[in-house]
Protein backbone atom coordinates (compact mmCIF):
# COMPACT_ATOMS: atom_id res chain seq x y z
CA UNK A 1 0.00 0.00 0.00
CA UNK A 2 1.08 3.46 -0.74
CA UNK A 3 -0.41 6.73 0.45
CA UNK A 4 -0.95 8.28 -2.98
CA UNK A 5 -3.51 10.92 -2.12
CA UNK A 6 -4.16 12.70 1.18
CA UNK A 7 -7.50 11.98 2.78
CA UNK A 8 -8.69 15.59 2.46
CA UNK A 9 -7.11 16.08 -0.99
CA UNK A 10 -4.26 18.38 0.04
CA UNK A 11 -0.78 18.26 -1.50
CA UNK A 12 1.77 16.47 0.70
CA UNK A 13 3.52 19.72 1.58
CA UNK A 14 0.36 21.79 1.94
CA UNK A 15 -1.11 22.97 5.23
CA UNK A 16 -4.81 23.29 5.91
CA UNK A 17 -6.26 26.83 5.51
CA UNK A 18 -4.73 29.20 8.06
CA UNK A 19 -6.10 32.40 9.54
CA UNK A 20 -4.98 34.54 12.43
CA UNK A 21 -6.04 37.62 14.33
CA UNK A 22 -4.59 39.67 17.15
CA UNK A 23 -6.26 41.80 19.82
CA UNK A 24 -9.19 39.41 20.21
CA UNK A 25 -9.43 39.63 24.02
CA UNK A 26 -9.79 43.19 25.30
CA UNK A 27 -9.03 42.46 28.96
CA UNK A 28 -5.68 40.89 28.15
CA UNK A 29 -2.41 42.77 27.69
CA UNK A 30 -1.95 40.90 24.43
CA UNK A 31 -4.04 38.33 22.62
CA UNK A 32 -4.38 36.38 19.40
CA UNK A 33 -6.32 33.61 17.75
CA UNK A 34 -4.86 31.13 15.29
CA UNK A 35 -6.87 28.73 13.14
CA UNK A 36 -5.47 25.91 11.04
CA UNK A 37 -8.17 23.78 9.44
CA UNK A 38 -10.60 22.87 12.23
CA UNK A 39 -8.13 23.61 15.01
CA UNK A 40 -8.62 26.99 16.67
CA UNK A 41 -6.48 28.33 19.51
CA UNK A 42 -6.89 31.52 21.51
CA UNK A 43 -4.01 32.94 23.49
CA UNK A 44 -4.09 35.70 26.07
CA UNK A 45 -1.08 37.31 27.74
CA UNK A 46 -1.28 38.95 31.16
CA UNK A 47 1.79 40.69 32.46
CA UNK A 48 4.54 41.25 33.25
CA UNK A 49 2.75 41.27 36.61
CA UNK A 50 3.52 40.46 40.22
CA UNK A 51 4.26 36.83 40.91
CA UNK A 52 2.92 35.09 43.98
CA UNK A 53 3.66 32.95 45.97
CA UNK A 54 6.94 34.76 46.46
CA UNK A 55 9.23 31.73 46.42
CA UNK A 56 8.50 31.36 42.69
CA UNK A 57 10.06 34.75 42.00
CA UNK A 58 13.41 34.98 40.28
CA UNK A 59 15.34 38.14 41.19
CA UNK A 60 17.43 38.01 38.02
CA UNK A 61 14.61 37.81 35.45
CA UNK A 62 10.90 37.68 34.88
CA UNK A 63 9.50 34.22 34.27
CA UNK A 64 7.15 32.85 31.63
CA UNK A 65 4.19 30.71 32.68
CA UNK A 66 2.14 28.89 30.03
CA UNK A 67 -1.15 27.15 30.47
CA UNK A 68 -2.61 25.00 27.68
CA UNK A 69 -6.25 24.00 28.06
CA UNK A 70 -8.85 22.34 25.85
CA UNK A 71 -12.42 23.57 26.20
CA UNK A 72 -14.58 20.62 27.34
CA UNK A 73 -16.42 20.41 24.00
CA UNK A 74 -13.40 20.96 21.76
CA UNK A 75 -12.17 17.40 21.38
CA UNK A 76 -12.72 14.75 18.74
CA UNK A 77 -14.94 12.31 20.61
CA UNK A 78 -15.89 12.41 24.29
CA UNK A 79 -16.19 15.54 26.40
CA UNK A 80 -12.84 16.55 27.89
CA UNK A 81 -13.09 16.89 31.63
CA UNK A 82 -12.28 20.45 32.70
CA UNK A 83 -9.10 21.17 34.60
CA UNK A 84 -5.48 20.16 34.12
CA UNK A 85 -4.59 16.66 32.95
CA UNK A 86 -1.20 14.96 32.59
CA UNK A 87 -1.39 15.71 28.86
CA UNK A 88 -2.26 19.39 29.24
CA UNK A 89 0.45 19.87 31.87
CA UNK A 90 3.09 18.41 29.58
CA UNK A 91 1.94 20.53 26.66
CA UNK A 92 2.00 23.64 28.86
CA UNK A 93 5.58 22.81 29.79
CA UNK A 94 6.83 22.20 26.24
CA UNK A 95 5.01 25.34 25.07
CA UNK A 96 6.86 27.38 27.67
CA UNK A 97 10.18 25.87 26.52
CA UNK A 98 9.28 26.57 22.89
CA UNK A 99 8.58 30.26 23.50
CA UNK A 100 11.26 31.11 26.07
CA UNK A 101 14.23 31.26 23.62
CA UNK A 102 12.78 34.33 21.84
CA UNK A 103 11.86 36.21 25.00
CA UNK A 104 13.88 38.65 27.05
CA UNK A 105 12.31 39.17 30.47
CA UNK A 106 15.47 40.47 32.20
CA UNK A 107 13.86 43.89 32.63
CA UNK A 108 11.20 42.40 34.88
CA UNK A 109 12.87 40.66 37.82
CA UNK A 110 10.49 38.83 40.17
CA UNK A 111 7.59 39.26 37.74
CA UNK A 112 5.63 36.77 35.65
CA UNK A 113 4.24 36.80 32.14
CA UNK A 114 1.21 34.54 32.02
CA UNK A 115 0.15 32.97 28.74
CA UNK A 116 -3.24 31.27 28.67
CA UNK A 117 -3.91 29.07 25.65
CA UNK A 118 -7.44 27.83 25.07
CA UNK A 119 -8.53 25.46 22.34
CA UNK A 120 -12.03 26.11 21.02
CA UNK A 121 -11.94 23.25 18.51
CA UNK A 122 -9.29 20.68 17.77
CA UNK A 123 -8.48 18.49 14.81
CA UNK A 124 -4.85 17.59 15.58
CA UNK A 125 -1.99 20.08 15.72
CA UNK A 126 -3.42 21.86 18.73
CA UNK A 127 -0.15 22.43 20.58
CA UNK A 128 1.33 23.96 17.41
CA UNK A 129 -1.68 26.23 16.91
CA UNK A 130 -1.38 27.18 20.58
CA UNK A 131 2.29 28.12 20.20
CA UNK A 132 1.57 30.17 17.05
CA UNK A 133 -1.21 32.06 18.85
CA UNK A 134 0.89 32.51 21.99
CA UNK A 135 3.87 34.01 20.20
CA UNK A 136 1.57 36.47 18.42
CA UNK A 137 -0.13 37.35 21.72
CA UNK A 138 3.26 37.99 23.35
CA UNK A 139 4.21 40.30 20.49
CA UNK A 140 0.82 42.00 20.78
CA UNK A 141 1.50 42.54 24.49
CA UNK A 142 4.73 44.33 23.62
CA UNK A 143 7.01 41.90 25.43
CA UNK A 144 10.63 42.20 24.26
CA UNK A 145 11.16 39.45 21.68
CA UNK A 146 13.89 38.42 19.28
CA UNK A 147 11.39 36.87 16.83
CA UNK A 148 8.03 35.15 16.68
CA UNK A 149 7.80 31.38 17.00
CA UNK A 150 6.18 29.35 14.24
CA UNK A 151 4.88 25.88 15.01
CA UNK A 152 3.53 23.23 12.71
CA UNK A 153 3.39 19.47 12.72
CA UNK A 154 5.16 17.40 10.13
CA UNK A 155 5.32 13.66 9.86
CA UNK A 156 4.71 10.60 7.85
CA UNK A 157 1.64 8.74 6.74
CA UNK A 158 2.36 5.30 5.32
CA UNK A 159 5.27 5.94 2.92
CA UNK A 160 4.86 9.71 2.46
CA UNK A 161 6.32 12.64 4.34
CA UNK A 162 3.51 15.14 4.99
CA UNK A 163 2.99 18.54 6.53
CA UNK A 164 0.28 19.47 9.06
CA UNK A 165 -1.41 16.13 9.79
CA UNK A 166 -5.09 16.24 10.66
CA UNK A 167 -6.89 13.79 12.91
CA UNK A 168 -7.81 11.36 10.13
CA UNK A 169 -4.17 11.10 9.10
CA UNK A 170 -2.97 10.63 12.67
CA UNK A 171 -5.47 7.78 12.94
CA UNK A 172 -4.49 6.23 9.58
CA UNK A 173 -4.74 2.46 9.90
CA UNK A 174 -3.18 1.03 6.73
CA UNK A 175 0.42 1.90 7.44
CA UNK A 176 2.84 3.50 9.87
CA UNK A 177 2.24 7.08 10.98
CA UNK A 178 4.56 9.57 12.61
CA UNK A 179 3.47 12.88 14.08
CA UNK A 180 6.22 15.42 14.73
CA UNK A 181 5.17 18.71 16.31
CA UNK A 182 7.80 21.29 15.54
CA UNK A 183 8.40 24.88 16.62
CA UNK A 184 10.90 26.98 14.74
CA UNK A 185 12.35 30.45 15.20
CA UNK A 186 12.04 31.72 11.61
CA UNK A 187 14.96 34.16 11.51
CA UNK A 188 17.53 31.57 12.57
CA UNK A 189 15.82 28.29 11.73
CA UNK A 190 16.46 27.07 15.28
CA UNK A 191 14.11 24.39 16.58
CA UNK A 192 12.56 25.17 19.96
CA UNK A 193 10.04 22.32 20.15
CA UNK A 194 10.52 18.83 18.85
CA UNK A 195 8.42 15.87 19.78
CA UNK A 196 7.35 12.82 17.90
CA UNK A 197 5.22 9.79 18.26
CA UNK A 198 4.80 6.93 15.84
CA UNK A 199 7.38 5.16 13.70
CA UNK A 200 9.81 6.77 11.34
CA UNK A 201 13.21 6.07 9.76
CA UNK A 202 16.18 8.38 10.14
CA UNK A 203 15.94 9.45 6.48
CA UNK A 204 12.23 10.19 6.72
CA UNK A 205 12.76 12.19 9.90
CA UNK A 206 15.45 14.34 8.26
CA UNK A 207 13.17 14.88 5.26
CA UNK A 208 10.22 15.77 7.49
CA UNK A 209 12.32 18.33 9.36
CA UNK A 210 13.40 19.99 6.14
CA UNK A 211 9.77 20.07 4.91
CA UNK A 212 8.96 21.77 8.20
CA UNK A 213 11.66 24.39 7.64
CA UNK A 214 10.26 25.07 4.16
CA UNK A 215 6.69 25.64 5.29
CA UNK A 216 7.67 28.02 8.13
CA UNK A 217 7.77 31.14 5.93
CA UNK A 218 4.13 30.69 4.98
CA UNK A 219 2.89 30.57 8.57
CA UNK A 220 5.25 33.38 9.58
CA UNK A 221 3.63 35.64 6.96
CA UNK A 222 0.15 34.94 8.34
CA UNK A 223 1.33 35.79 11.86
CA UNK A 224 3.08 39.00 10.80
CA UNK A 225 0.13 40.15 8.71
CA UNK A 226 -2.24 39.65 11.63
CA UNK A 227 0.00 41.80 13.82
CA UNK A 228 0.41 44.48 11.16
CA UNK A 229 -3.32 44.60 10.56
CA UNK A 230 -3.99 45.33 14.20
CA UNK A 231 -1.67 48.29 14.22
CA UNK A 232 -2.52 49.74 10.85
CA UNK A 233 -4.30 53.11 11.15
CA UNK A 234 -7.62 51.73 9.95
CA UNK A 235 -8.16 49.28 12.76
CA UNK A 236 -6.91 51.64 15.47
CA UNK A 237 -9.76 54.03 14.67
CA UNK A 238 -12.39 51.39 15.19
Amino acid at each position, binding site marked *: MSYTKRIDGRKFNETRPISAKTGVIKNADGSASFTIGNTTAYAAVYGPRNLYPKFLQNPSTGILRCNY*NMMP*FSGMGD*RVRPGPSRRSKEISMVTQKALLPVLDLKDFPNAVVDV*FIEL*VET*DAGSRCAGICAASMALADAGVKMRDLVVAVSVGKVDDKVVVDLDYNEEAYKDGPVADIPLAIIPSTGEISLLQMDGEVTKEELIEALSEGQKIVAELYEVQKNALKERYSSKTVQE
Partner: protein
Amino acid sequence: MNNNSKMNNDSKNHLIKSLEKGIRFDGRKLTDYRKVVVETGVSKNAEGSARVKFGDTEVVAGVKMMMEKPYPDTPEQGVIMVNAEFLPMASPEFESGPPGIDSIELSRVVDRGIRESKAIDLKKLCLKKGEKVWMVSIDICTINADGNLLDASALAALAALQNARFPEYVDDEVNYKKHTDEKLPMDKLPLPVTIHKIGNFFIVDPSREEEHGVEARLTITSTEKGIICALQKGGATLTNDEVAQMLELALEKSTELRKYF
Protein backbone atom coordinates in the same frame (compact mmCIF):
# COMPACT_ATOMS: atom_id res chain seq x y z
CA MET B 1 -24.32 57.70 50.92
CA ASN B 2 -25.11 54.10 51.52
CA ASN B 3 -22.68 52.26 49.29
CA ASN B 4 -23.16 48.51 49.35
CA SER B 5 -21.04 47.87 46.30
CA LYS B 6 -17.41 47.19 45.39
CA MET B 7 -17.06 50.61 43.75
CA ASN B 8 -15.44 53.47 45.65
CA ASN B 9 -17.72 56.30 46.79
CA ASP B 10 -16.55 58.90 44.28
CA SER B 11 -17.04 56.68 41.26
CA LYS B 12 -20.36 55.54 42.65
CA ASN B 13 -21.59 59.13 43.08
CA HIS B 14 -20.47 59.92 39.58
CA LEU B 15 -22.27 56.86 38.22
CA ILE B 16 -25.51 57.70 40.04
CA LYS B 17 -25.40 61.31 38.83
CA SER B 18 -25.05 60.02 35.32
CA LEU B 19 -27.92 57.56 35.75
CA GLU B 20 -30.13 60.42 37.02
CA LYS B 21 -29.65 62.00 33.62
CA GLY B 22 -30.69 58.73 32.02
CA ILE B 23 -27.30 58.03 30.51
CA ARG B 24 -24.57 55.50 31.26
CA PHE B 25 -20.76 55.82 31.04
CA ASP B 26 -20.73 54.30 27.57
CA GLY B 27 -23.63 56.45 26.32
CA ARG B 28 -26.34 53.82 26.60
CA LYS B 29 -29.75 54.40 28.13
CA LEU B 30 -30.47 52.52 31.35
CA THR B 31 -32.27 49.62 29.73
CA ASP B 32 -30.20 49.31 26.57
CA TYR B 33 -28.18 46.22 25.80
CA ARG B 34 -24.77 46.57 24.22
CA LYS B 35 -24.42 45.25 20.69
CA VAL B 36 -25.45 41.59 20.77
CA VAL B 37 -23.85 39.12 18.37
CA VAL B 38 -24.86 35.45 18.20
CA GLU B 39 -22.93 33.04 16.02
CA THR B 40 -23.54 29.28 15.92
CA GLY B 41 -21.44 26.30 14.84
CA VAL B 42 -18.18 27.75 16.12
CA SER B 43 -16.64 24.46 17.30
CA LYS B 44 -16.93 21.64 14.79
CA ASN B 45 -16.36 18.75 17.19
CA ALA B 46 -19.11 19.76 19.55
CA GLU B 47 -22.61 18.48 18.80
CA GLY B 48 -23.70 22.11 19.02
CA SER B 49 -21.91 25.36 19.73
CA ALA B 50 -22.39 29.11 19.84
CA ARG B 51 -20.48 32.30 20.46
CA VAL B 52 -22.26 35.25 22.06
CA LYS B 53 -20.96 38.78 22.41
CA PHE B 54 -22.52 41.53 24.50
CA GLY B 55 -20.22 44.43 23.62
CA ASP B 56 -16.76 43.32 24.76
CA THR B 57 -18.11 40.40 26.78
CA GLU B 58 -17.61 37.19 24.85
CA VAL B 59 -18.48 33.60 25.74
CA VAL B 60 -18.48 30.32 23.87
CA ALA B 61 -20.82 27.45 24.73
CA GLY B 62 -20.57 23.90 23.47
CA VAL B 63 -22.85 20.89 23.74
CA LYS B 64 -21.51 17.34 23.96
CA MET B 65 -23.76 14.28 24.02
CA MET B 66 -22.77 11.00 25.58
CA MET B 67 -24.54 7.69 26.07
CA GLU B 68 -24.73 6.96 29.78
CA LYS B 69 -26.62 4.96 32.38
CA PRO B 70 -29.50 7.01 33.84
CA TYR B 71 -29.71 7.95 37.50
CA PRO B 72 -31.49 5.22 39.51
CA ASP B 73 -34.30 7.59 40.59
CA THR B 74 -35.06 8.67 36.99
CA PRO B 75 -34.51 5.52 34.90
CA GLU B 76 -36.55 6.87 31.98
CA GLN B 77 -34.94 10.26 31.72
CA GLY B 78 -31.90 11.64 29.99
CA VAL B 79 -29.50 13.90 31.85
CA ILE B 80 -28.55 17.52 31.29
CA MET B 81 -25.60 19.18 32.89
CA VAL B 82 -24.44 22.79 32.74
CA ASN B 83 -20.90 23.77 33.62
CA ALA B 84 -19.19 27.14 33.38
CA GLU B 85 -15.45 27.75 33.17
CA PHE B 86 -14.30 31.22 34.13
CA LEU B 87 -11.09 30.90 32.14
CA PRO B 88 -8.21 33.02 33.47
CA MET B 89 -7.74 34.10 29.85
CA ALA B 90 -10.90 36.20 30.08
CA SER B 91 -10.02 38.56 32.91
CA PRO B 92 -7.17 39.49 35.26
CA GLU B 93 -9.68 38.85 38.06
CA PHE B 94 -10.06 35.16 37.19
CA GLU B 95 -7.58 32.64 38.53
CA SER B 96 -6.70 29.10 37.51
CA GLY B 97 -8.03 26.32 39.67
CA PRO B 98 -11.29 24.62 40.58
CA PRO B 99 -14.52 26.51 39.81
CA GLY B 100 -15.14 29.43 42.14
CA ILE B 101 -18.49 30.39 43.61
CA ASP B 102 -19.31 32.85 40.81
CA SER B 103 -18.97 30.25 38.07
CA ILE B 104 -20.87 27.69 40.13
CA GLU B 105 -23.73 30.14 40.69
CA LEU B 106 -23.80 31.05 37.01
CA SER B 107 -23.95 27.47 35.81
CA ARG B 108 -26.61 26.58 38.35
CA VAL B 109 -28.83 29.50 37.37
CA VAL B 110 -28.50 28.66 33.66
CA ASP B 111 -29.16 24.99 34.47
CA ARG B 112 -32.23 25.84 36.55
CA GLY B 113 -33.86 27.81 33.75
CA ILE B 114 -33.45 24.97 31.26
CA ARG B 115 -34.44 22.26 33.75
CA GLU B 116 -37.41 23.91 35.44
CA SER B 117 -39.00 25.21 32.25
CA LYS B 118 -38.83 21.62 30.97
CA ALA B 119 -37.46 23.08 27.78
CA ILE B 120 -35.88 19.74 26.91
CA ASP B 121 -38.08 16.66 27.04
CA LEU B 122 -35.78 14.42 29.07
CA LYS B 123 -37.95 11.35 28.45
CA LYS B 124 -37.16 11.58 24.75
CA LEU B 125 -33.49 11.27 25.62
CA CYS B 126 -34.03 7.74 26.94
CA LEU B 127 -33.07 4.88 24.63
CA LYS B 128 -33.49 1.97 27.02
CA LYS B 129 -35.12 2.34 30.41
CA GLY B 130 -32.62 2.05 33.25
CA GLU B 131 -29.75 1.40 30.87
CA LYS B 132 -29.17 3.91 28.13
CA VAL B 133 -29.93 7.59 28.05
CA TRP B 134 -28.31 10.57 26.37
CA MET B 135 -26.34 12.81 28.66
CA VAL B 136 -26.29 16.35 27.31
CA SER B 137 -23.51 18.43 28.75
CA ILE B 138 -23.36 22.13 28.14
CA ASP B 139 -20.05 23.80 28.82
CA ILE B 140 -19.72 27.56 28.87
CA CYS B 141 -16.27 29.11 28.51
CA THR B 142 -15.49 32.79 28.93
CA ILE B 143 -13.32 34.45 26.31
CA ASN B 144 -13.50 38.03 27.58
CA ALA B 145 -15.32 39.08 30.73
CA ASP B 146 -16.69 42.61 30.63
CA GLY B 147 -19.84 42.29 32.70
CA ASN B 148 -23.16 40.45 32.48
CA LEU B 149 -21.58 37.05 31.96
CA LEU B 150 -24.74 35.31 33.14
CA ASP B 151 -27.12 36.62 30.49
CA ALA B 152 -24.52 36.16 27.76
CA SER B 153 -23.76 32.61 28.93
CA ALA B 154 -27.41 31.61 29.05
CA LEU B 155 -28.00 32.97 25.56
CA ALA B 156 -24.94 31.05 24.32
CA ALA B 157 -26.11 27.86 26.05
CA LEU B 158 -29.55 28.09 24.43
CA ALA B 159 -28.13 28.90 21.01
CA ALA B 160 -25.73 25.94 21.31
CA LEU B 161 -28.59 23.62 22.32
CA GLN B 162 -30.63 24.74 19.33
CA ASN B 163 -27.62 24.26 17.10
CA ALA B 164 -26.99 20.72 18.41
CA ARG B 165 -27.52 17.61 16.30
CA PHE B 166 -27.40 14.07 17.66
CA PRO B 167 -24.29 12.10 16.74
CA GLU B 168 -24.80 8.78 15.01
CA TYR B 169 -25.38 5.88 17.38
CA VAL B 170 -24.83 2.40 15.94
CA ASP B 171 -23.95 -0.93 17.55
CA ASP B 172 -23.86 0.52 21.05
CA GLU B 173 -21.34 3.13 20.06
CA VAL B 174 -21.50 6.85 19.52
CA ASN B 175 -19.87 7.91 16.28
CA TYR B 176 -18.86 11.50 16.90
CA LYS B 177 -17.59 11.89 13.37
CA LYS B 178 -21.08 11.64 11.93
CA HIS B 179 -24.01 13.74 12.98
CA THR B 180 -27.63 13.06 12.15
CA ASP B 181 -30.13 15.79 11.25
CA GLU B 182 -31.98 15.18 14.47
CA LYS B 183 -32.24 18.13 16.85
CA LEU B 184 -32.68 18.07 20.61
CA PRO B 185 -36.32 17.77 21.74
CA MET B 186 -36.50 21.38 22.82
CA ASP B 187 -39.65 23.43 22.53
CA LYS B 188 -39.12 26.37 24.86
CA LEU B 189 -36.58 29.12 25.24
CA PRO B 190 -36.03 29.85 28.94
CA LEU B 191 -34.16 33.11 28.64
CA PRO B 192 -32.72 34.82 31.71
CA VAL B 193 -32.54 38.57 32.03
CA THR B 194 -30.69 40.03 34.99
CA ILE B 195 -31.86 43.39 36.29
CA HIS B 196 -29.27 45.30 38.30
CA LYS B 197 -30.03 47.90 40.91
CA ILE B 198 -27.73 50.89 41.38
CA GLY B 199 -29.06 53.57 43.74
CA ASN B 200 -32.72 53.81 42.83
CA PHE B 201 -32.12 52.85 39.23
CA PHE B 202 -32.54 49.63 37.35
CA ILE B 203 -30.19 48.80 34.51
CA VAL B 204 -29.61 45.83 32.24
CA ASP B 205 -26.41 44.42 30.76
CA PRO B 206 -23.85 46.20 32.98
CA SER B 207 -20.24 46.52 31.91
CA ARG B 208 -17.62 45.18 34.31
CA GLU B 209 -17.15 48.69 35.69
CA GLU B 210 -20.88 49.19 36.29
CA GLU B 211 -21.13 45.72 37.80
CA HIS B 212 -18.78 46.84 40.57
CA GLY B 213 -21.29 49.55 41.45
CA VAL B 214 -24.29 47.22 41.59
CA GLU B 215 -26.04 46.87 44.95
CA ALA B 216 -28.57 44.19 44.12
CA ARG B 217 -29.50 42.05 41.17
CA LEU B 218 -32.32 39.77 40.21
CA THR B 219 -32.10 37.20 37.45
CA ILE B 220 -35.48 36.36 35.99
CA THR B 221 -35.75 33.46 33.57
CA SER B 222 -38.88 33.34 31.47
CA THR B 223 -40.23 31.44 28.49
CA GLU B 224 -41.75 32.97 25.37
CA LYS B 225 -45.19 32.66 26.97
CA GLY B 226 -44.08 34.86 29.84
CA ILE B 227 -43.95 31.98 32.33
CA ILE B 228 -41.25 32.61 34.90
CA CYS B 229 -39.23 29.47 35.52
CA ALA B 230 -36.26 30.54 37.64
CA LEU B 231 -35.18 33.38 39.88
CA GLN B 232 -31.92 34.28 41.54
CA LYS B 233 -31.41 37.33 43.72
CA GLY B 234 -27.96 38.62 44.57
CA GLY B 235 -26.59 41.44 46.71
CA ALA B 236 -28.65 43.72 48.96
CA THR B 237 -32.34 43.53 49.93
CA LEU B 238 -35.22 44.33 47.59
CA THR B 239 -38.79 45.45 48.32
CA ASN B 240 -41.94 43.91 46.85
CA ASP B 241 -42.35 46.97 44.68
CA GLU B 242 -38.85 46.73 43.35
CA VAL B 243 -39.28 43.06 42.50
CA ALA B 244 -42.47 43.91 40.61
CA GLN B 245 -40.70 46.60 38.58
CA MET B 246 -37.78 44.31 37.87
CA LEU B 247 -40.12 41.55 36.68
CA GLU B 248 -41.82 43.89 34.27
CA LEU B 249 -38.54 45.10 32.83
CA ALA B 250 -37.10 41.59 32.57
CA LEU B 251 -40.10 40.26 30.65
CA GLU B 252 -39.93 43.19 28.26
CA LYS B 253 -36.21 42.69 27.70
CA SER B 254 -36.51 38.95 27.20
CA THR B 255 -38.83 39.57 24.24
CA GLU B 256 -36.20 41.85 22.82
CA LEU B 257 -33.47 39.19 23.18
CA ARG B 258 -35.61 36.51 21.58
CA LYS B 259 -35.11 38.07 18.19
CA TYR B 260 -31.63 36.57 18.13
CA PHE B 261 -33.16 33.10 17.76
